[in-house]
């Protein structure tokens, strides 16, 4: 048994029903895309959890570094003017 023969890993994304985004739900090992789709169907949609599946080779995903979380995301914390609730309009038009 050698690790070199292990089937590659695929990340599985499922659209649970029309109108919704595909959402990450897990991973499967498979030799190619067609079999990854088949495995994802068997493993993740046994109760009609989806109407569409994407599979992506795990080694093809570029992810942000968790160590950079503060530097990437914290600067947005003080930009409250990006939210509609920041603006207090005259009562008559405050519903817009």
């Amino acid at each position: 048994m050698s690790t070199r023969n292990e089937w590659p890993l695929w990340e599985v994304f499922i659209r649970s029903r029309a109108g919704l985004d595909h959402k990450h739900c897990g991973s499967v090992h498979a030799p190619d895309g067609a079999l990854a789709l088949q495995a994802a169907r068997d493993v993740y949609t046994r109760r009609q959890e989806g109407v569409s599946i994407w599979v992506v080779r795990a080694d093809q995903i570029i992810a942000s570094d968790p160590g950079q979380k503060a530097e990437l995301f914290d600067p947005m914390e003080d930009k409250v003017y990006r939210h509609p609730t920041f603006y207090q309009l005259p009562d008559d038009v405050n519903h817009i």
Partner: protein
Amino acid sequence: MYTQAMDIPEGNKAPLQSIEQGTASADFDARCAQGDFIEAKDWMPEQYRKTLVRQISQHAHSEIVGMLPEGNWVTRAPSLKRKAILLAKIQDEGGHGLYLYAAAETLGTSRDEMIEALHSGRAKYSSIFNYPTPTWADIGVIGWLVDGAAIMNQVPLCRCSYGPYARAMIRICREESFHQRQGFDLLHAMMQGTEAQRAMVQEAVNRWWWPVLMMFGPEDKDSQHSEQSAKWGIKRLSNDELRQKFVDAIVEQARVLGVTLPDPDLKWNAEHGHHDFGAINWQEFWNVVNGHGPLNKERLAARVQAWDDGAWVREAALAHANKQATRSVAA
């Protein structure tokens, strides 16, 4: 539980830490204490990683080996309906194993390493799956009691600090309720049947009751790992707490079913608000955990054979994929 062998001492002590690691590890402990989720690429103490790999892979192995006792009855289920239900249940258990292997892999181990550890006997799986399933009532009792015990343990794990494990557990718990209910339903149908059918259910309950209580692992006073695991949010309730919750829940269900739980010491304790129960035979538990249960050898042999028999399929599929990839590059 499915990870009961977590309580077996491993021998290796936590390594000494550098000062930077010390600070990082204090931050980490604080995150766990706040109920933060830890994700795969986050910094984590080596011991946290190791404990989780061990716990999640044991859990995965239990799901996979757990298909074998039930598989024994697929071809002999008494009706098409029961066969379809049993197949669906077993397929779920296979799925549970796969969700969990994938969660463990996010911690840096590989599927092949985990499977090799199981097949070589280094890795453990739940002792309960080393008991035989000689009658159809065993299939009902597994659903009712074995899956019932598993649910007790798994529900608190949905809030485990490690995100990928917690998410796998949420998915699993959603599916487990069907397992326990189909088991109860099967037994309930038999209890409405003939005297012989009722006797068969009672006999199965007699055989499974004590091994099921052992699924929760050693008593708290004898169990390793628990304190650190509790601090890290990997284990939320102790073995004894879970076992007690289980007994309290099952007593009423047994009454409705019309079976007797085989423990003369089992009775309501009004003072504690719980049921007292008799002493567990821990010698039997350790025997089974250490490989000397009724079917340890058969179970492992069946797993290894399935893996070996499937080798040519795995190799052919990979060779085909490689050939297709080469062709599309050439084209």
